[in-house]
């Protein structure tokens, strides 16, 4: 079965100091709305990512509040001003208490 919470981060290979770079992040998650039903009429319970935190070094640079209306296998692109060599950590939290995170090191030249 496809695992939930696998994260893939894509960004430019070489980054110069102070450059504003796009960061693409993909995470696998069903993002169930809680509005759908199975064939025998049972409601599939809601199961979705409701919060995303992005840390760069020690600071939280971005936070997202998501609802059920974000697509399955959520994808996002955000921008980052790469002015220091520090880890970039992306943390997803879902409504059932799951926490999924991934870290990449950013080394601007």
């Amino acid at each position, binding site marked *: 079965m496809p695992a939930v919470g696998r994260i893939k981060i894509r960004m430019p290979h070489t980054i110069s100091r102070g450059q504003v770079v796009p960061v693409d992040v993909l995470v696998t998650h069903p993002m169930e709305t809680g*509005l759908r039903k199975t064939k025998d009429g049972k409601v599939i319970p809601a199961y979705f990512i409701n919060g995303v935190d992005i840390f760069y070094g020690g600071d939280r640079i971005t936070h997202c509040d998501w609802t059920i209306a974000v697509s399955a296998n*959520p994808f996002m692109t955000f921008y980052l*001003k790469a002015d220091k060599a520090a880890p970039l950590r992306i943390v997803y939290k879902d409504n059932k208490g799951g926490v999924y995170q991934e870290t990449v090191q950013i080394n601007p030249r």
Partner: protein
Amino acid sequence: MEQKGKDLALSRRAFLKTGGAACAMFLVAGSLPSLVKPAFGAPKEESITDVLRRQFGGKQVSQSHVDIKAPIIAENGAVVPITIVSDLPMRSDDYVKRINVYAEGNAEPFVAGIDLTPANGKAEFALRIKMRKTANVRVVLETSKGKLYGAARSVKVTIGGCGG
């Protein structure tokens, strides 16, 4: 305003739903009144104007400095890629604090809120959202100085069709 015209027109979906509910009531009401109730147990839908009034208290939203990139026709309403672009500054004393995304046709129009900081360097964000029907995607940006900027773009969502 374009918004008003939309509300007045009864869409095909809404017509079928209300018509269907009325028929169901007509048929069932006489013999089994208790069965009618669940049909009306669906969550109450909030209109976009109510949501905006609740969140921003009737504050003026300037329709400038924001652009939404979205497909004209989304073949699949479950995945509509949108990109929000703004030319507003991201300085430490004046930056975009939050991006709010709404899909007007959804039962719950609020889709996502994104808190940005000057460390982002650029007020741009891309996301894929679910849309229940053809409607406007609306974005409201809040700046650190308390100003509101917004934009809206219509996306056609086709239902049925060749997906299989």
